[in-house]
């Protein structure tokens, strides 16, 4: 919610009209001020208008000029109310890209999924102004990088949800080993419908009631998780570490999921062998005693 207000307010201030020669630096002369902000008269919350130069230049939008997204008359200070209220269309822009049709996960798909999402369908007043930017700050968003530790990815991902869902802890009281789950599994992994192996995790965020409560969905050989976070992980790990290291240092150990048939058989064999030895030892002692008794 706050994010949304923030972005609606912040975003349009970022550009100048096309007729003036505009560089991002011109926008950042004001928006680069760390404390550029104001208290929203209705909510009383601080609306942050600061654009961190390092974050934006390292974001997926780092190569764009501010004016590519924020088109409007920003030559005037303060920026006109009309320009300030103009909303941004992520889908439209992303679909206009040359490679849009070739994308594995198209923005139209995202849009369609999002439309079904609880964020879009909820009647809660808090959800009324929800949009892409509520989760994806366009000024700092970047996809998880190969090399980021799984824990970091999960932490950052979940932190985003927790900024609004302050009650999550209470509502997940039922979940065994809750903190451990939150350290190793993304909220999304349970709160989106299962998708096929080729599809990324859906933007169709489910309501609490519709979300996955079945432990076995993950804690099984055919775990849902393998289609999700860990799929990316396995691929990236193999790419960077080779399959042997991946097998040994597998971060993706999940009870019930990470089964190796060889290991299972090996373990069974060891147990069987142990039992056999015990039996042989018992028989040996029995026979030795019988022999002693006979001698007496």
């Amino acid at each position: 919610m706050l994010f949304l207000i923030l972005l609606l307010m912040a975003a349009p201030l970022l550009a100048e009209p096309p007729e003036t020669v505009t560089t991002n630096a011109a926008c950042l002369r004001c928006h680069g001020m760390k404390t550029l902000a104001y208290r929203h008269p209705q909510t009383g919350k601080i609306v942050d208008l600061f654009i961190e130069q390092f974050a934006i230049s390292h974001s997926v939008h780092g190569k764009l000029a501010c004016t590519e997204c924020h088109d409007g008359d920003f030559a005037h200070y303060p920026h006109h109310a009309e320009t300030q209220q103009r909303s941004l269309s992520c889908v439209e822009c992303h679909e206009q890209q040359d490679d849009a049709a070739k994308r594995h996960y198209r923005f139209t798909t995202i849009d369609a999924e999002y439309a079904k999402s609880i964020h879009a369908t909820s009647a809660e007043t808090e959800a009324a102004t929800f949009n892409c930017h509520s989760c994806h700050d366009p000024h700092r968003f970047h996809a998880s990088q190969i090399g980021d530790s799984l824990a970091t990815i999960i932490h950052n991902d979940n932190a985003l949800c927790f900024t609004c869902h302050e009650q999550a802890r209470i509502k997940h009281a039922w979940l065994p080993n809750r903190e451990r789950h939150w350290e190793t599994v993304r909220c999304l992994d349970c709160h989106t419908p299962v998708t096929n192996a080729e599809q990324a995790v859906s933007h169709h965020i489910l309501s609490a009631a519709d979300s996955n409560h079945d432990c076995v969905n993950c804690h099984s050989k055919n775990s849902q998780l393998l289609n999700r976070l860990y799929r990316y992980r396995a691929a990236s790990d193999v790419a960077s570490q080779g399959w042997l290291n991946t097998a040994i240092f597998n971060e993706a150990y999940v009870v019930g999921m990470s089964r190796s048939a060889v290991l299972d058989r090996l373990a069974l064999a060891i147990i069987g062998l142990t039992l056999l030895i015990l039996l042989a030892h018992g028989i040996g002692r029995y026979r030795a005693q019988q022999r002693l008794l006979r001698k007496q």
Partner: protein
Amino acid sequence: MNHLLIKKWWALTMVRRITIGVMSVLVVTLIYKVLYPLAFEFYVGKTNAPLTYSSSQELTPEAFELLAQELSRETRQQQAATIVATDQDPFARQVKIELLMNTPSVIKDSEPAHIRYFRDAGIRRYEGPKTCLQCHATIRIQHGDGTHATLDTLNDLVNSVHFKFQTEAGGFSTYGYDGRQVNSGAHKIPVGKINRACGIPGSFSWTGWAALIASRPEAQQDAIRLRSEGCGQCHIGGNYQPATEKMMPIGDVPNDAKEGIDCLICHATEYDMNQRYVIKDHQGLRWNQDRSLRSALTVGTIDSDTCLRCHQHNMGGDTYQHNVAAQSLGYINQRLLHHGAKRGNPFSPQDDVHAAAGMECTDCHVPEGHRIPRGRKGVDLVANDLPNKEVTCESCHTSAPHHQSRDKALLNGHVARLACETCHIKELTADNVVLRDWVHSTWNAKEGIFEPTDIYRSGAAGKGFTFLWFNGNGTFLANALGNHPDKTLNYNPLMQQVARITDPDIIATVRTKATELKQQYPEIDVDAYVTAATEPLSQLNPELLVQREVMIATNLSAAMNQGESRIYPFKLFNAMMYEDMSNQGAFGAMILPFDYARYYETGDSAAAVKVAIADPIIQRMYQEPFKRYMMDEFMAYFGIMDGWKTIYPLVNNQLVNVEAHWMRQMGTLMVNHGIQRQGHACIACHAPNGIMNFAQLGYSPERVAELEQIDDIVPSLNSAAQSDGQ
């Protein structure tokens, strides 16, 4: 047989051992409690004696009740007036109010609380701390984290900065010119006040605690009028000297001195400042107090008025028109007012937005018992009882304090780089003193005294105060430390801003003043005088100058680069004083105190130094024990690495190796009060030749150009801040 002998011998040995043990404890106690204080008094040449005050008078029960009635009359009347109906004949109403206000129920509700306490306890005379401690032996305090503690009240006070004004503890944000944080190492020394604006600096409050000046106002045809002067007027100890004992690692302030503590000057709502004057008794000079029962009966919660009895002195100044205490100078021996304000930023409803909003000092400076926080940022070497407790604007105003202006977001944007005070203290009072010459005194005909000559006063931005990067640290001689966020090497205030005055207006004023002084002091070389006053580094020889630059670069850069700096306003101050040149370094030499009476009465500044340094405690300062105990360490912080030279500068009543100099740099004092609702307009800084020298603040030439010319983005800039405020 043998066995019995051994037993007997053993018993005897035990008895002997126990006796020796008890005796040694007794001897140690005797030495510590009796011999040590006597030896210490003898060593420092100070004495203690029971203190009496003429205002401490016993009242009869009848007089007590009359006083009680008088003190509560106004509140009783107000309370009755709110109850009695208004829709009636005025005379009838008046009669009813008078009836009601004298009923026990109204009296009970509106009488100051201590009237009843004293009445019930049978207290008919106020006798200082003794009286207060009857009920307030302990005090329950709340720490910043919400936890509580119960403390011994007297002990809490006696160890507070308000009583001893120094500390051997750490917690200073002050860095020596040798690069060490003051008292952060193993060798801790008692320090806590180097008052750059005063000619009686720091521990020299010994020599200037209480003085009687024989003034000769011209209006009274040279008749002598005694006037009071000295550090003790603003300190709560009523003794003949400050709490010297507190400077030692052992020992305590004598009980006589503790009985001299003035509780009422802070705690009484109606303290009579006319009782604050110097009195002379058979022991010597000390400060009188209001110990009347009347004052004691008005004890209530602390408010700004009580704090400002002393603290307006260092904010608005003595001659500030709304300085309430300065309106009551004493029934006799009236206190002398110090001309030229130390900071020129008054805290009063007329000149400060927070005072006007009815806020009390303790709203921001939230006390814990008798310990009151100064805030974590401190540029000067002043002891802080609660060094970790924040006193900030942001704690109330948040980081987005502007709500009203069209430019609120832009104004809030400045918070990352500027302190609130930078815009919201637009000017200091005009009598803010910048350059003060203690050496060449000037006759004040009205007061009939010789005063130090103020060479330059100004309350204007860029003249009376400047802007510096500040991260909360300061040097040993009160220079703000901080750095441009880019940590550029261009920013070097100790070689630039505070070591050089380049403003032609100021230089011209100094020249005029020097020319005036020359009429009285023909030996003055005006050109040399102006150079020394405006370029104090010109007084350093080339080696010291090089040493200074090296020390700044190697010793101070860490303290400058700490944390995040913001630009703050700093009142500038420098003084010409006598210095002991045996103890000179790259940042200055040990300054010598003046004897107030001799100075004010004769104007002979050198003679006044001679009198002051003849004081036994200054002589002790120039001896080996004091050198080892603290002065070597003190000098290291001062930037003098080869120790304190114990070459006593007075031989056969002649000053030896003593010279008059300006300190090698200006001191910079934080200004945080006198906050104005309407801050500076943008254009005050964002224009060529604005009040802020961006280049000296370490900005690159390109950035300076950008900062000075922002009307390309904000065309309506000039009027931008007109609707400012919060």
